C-alpha cells in the first residue's frame, strides 16, 4: 500500500515554478547548466550559454498537434527576438530526431532546437505534457510560463516584460 501511495505522489506534477512565477518572484531558470545536443547532434548547448539574451524556451514534439498550431507564433517571436539579440530555443520532448528535423523544415522554423531524449531538462520545469513555453529574461530568470499551446498575446507581453527588466 505504501508503495502505491509513493507511486501516486511521485507522479504528481511539479508546480513550484508556476507558483513562484505567479507571485512575481522571477525564479532562476532550472537546469541552466544542462547541456543538450542539437537536433542534428553536431553540437551541444545549454541555457547558461544564452545568458544575456531573452530566451523563449519551448518544449515540443513533432507528434504533438498543438505544437504544430503554435509553430508560426513561435517563428514570429523568433524574428522579433533576433533583432534584439534574443532567441526562441526549442527543446524536443520524447521525439524521434528525424521527425523533429522534418517538423522544423515543414514549418520553416529558423530558431534552434535541442534534443532532450533522456529528459534531463524537461522534468526540471515540471513539463509532462506538451507544448509548454517559458520566457526567460537576460539574467536567466523565468518571467512567464505557458502550459499548453502558447498564444500570440501571451508571447508578446511576456517578451516585452523580459526585455524591460
Amino acid at each position, binding site marked *: 500500500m505504501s508503495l502505491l501511495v*509513493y507511486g501516486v505522489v511521485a507522479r504528481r506534477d511539479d508546480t513550484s515554478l508556476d507558483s513562484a512565477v505567479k507571485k512575481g518572484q522571477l525564479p532562476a531558470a532550472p537546469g541552466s547548466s544542462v547541456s543538450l545536443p542539437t537536433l542534428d547532434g553536431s553540437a551541444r548547448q545549454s541555457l547558461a550559454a544564452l545568458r544575456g539574451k531573452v530566451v523563449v524556451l519551448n518544449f515540443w514534439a513533432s*507528434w504533438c498537434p498543438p505544437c504544430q498550431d503554435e509553430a508560426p507564433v513561435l517563428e514570429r517571436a523568433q524574428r522579433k527576438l533576433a533583432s534584439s539579440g534574443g532567441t526562441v530555443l526549442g527543446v524536443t520532448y*520524447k521525439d*524521434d530526431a528525424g*521527425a523533429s528535423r522534418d517538423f522544423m523544415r515543414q514549418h520553416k522554423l529558423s530558431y534552434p532546437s535541442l534534443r532532450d*531524449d*533522456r529528459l534531463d531538462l524537461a522534468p526540471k520545469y515540471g513539463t509532462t505534457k506538451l507544448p509548454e513555453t517559458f520566457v526567460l529574461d537576460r539574467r536567466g530568470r523565468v518571467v512567464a510560463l505557458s502550459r499548453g499551446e502558447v498564444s500570440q498575446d501571451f508571447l508578446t507581453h511576456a517578451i516585452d516584460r523580459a526585455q524591460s527588466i
Partner: protein
Amino acid sequence: MRAAVIALLAMLALAPSALAVQPKASFNDVEDEVMCDTCNVPLNIADSDRAEQERQVIRKLIAQGLTKDQIKDRLKAQYGPAILATPQDSGFSLAVWWVPVAVVVALLALIAALLPRWRNRPPPDGGDDGDDPGPGRELSASDARRLEQDLARYDV
C-alpha cells in the same frame, strides 16, 4: 548471346532481393517489450501519435536488420531505460523484484515461527462444561456408571 542477355536480366531482377536486409526481429515481438513513453503503457496497447511514431522507428530498425536486443539497446541508449517495458534494474523500479521476494520471505518466517507453536498446542480440554471427556480420555467411575445405566434402558 540471347541466353547470356536473359541470364544477365534475371540476375539484375534478383539482385535487389538478394541485397535486401533480412529482418532478424519480428515487430510484434519487439512491440510488447517497449513502452509508449508518453502514455506509460506498453506500446502494443498504446494508441497515440507518439506510439505510432515509436512503431515507425521500430519498423525502420527492423528493416535495417537489427535483432530484438539490438533494437531495445538502441531505444534504451536514446530514450533511457524507461522506454523498455521490463522493469529497470535500479532505483525505485527494483521494488518490482524485491517486494515479492520480501513478501515470500516474510511469509516463510511467519510460518516457521508459528508452526512449532501450533504443533505443540495443548489438546482441547473438553469444553467449558466439562461433560465431554474428549477423545482418548477415560471416563470417571461415576460417568461410566451413568453410561451403563443409560445404555441398559435401551436394551431390547
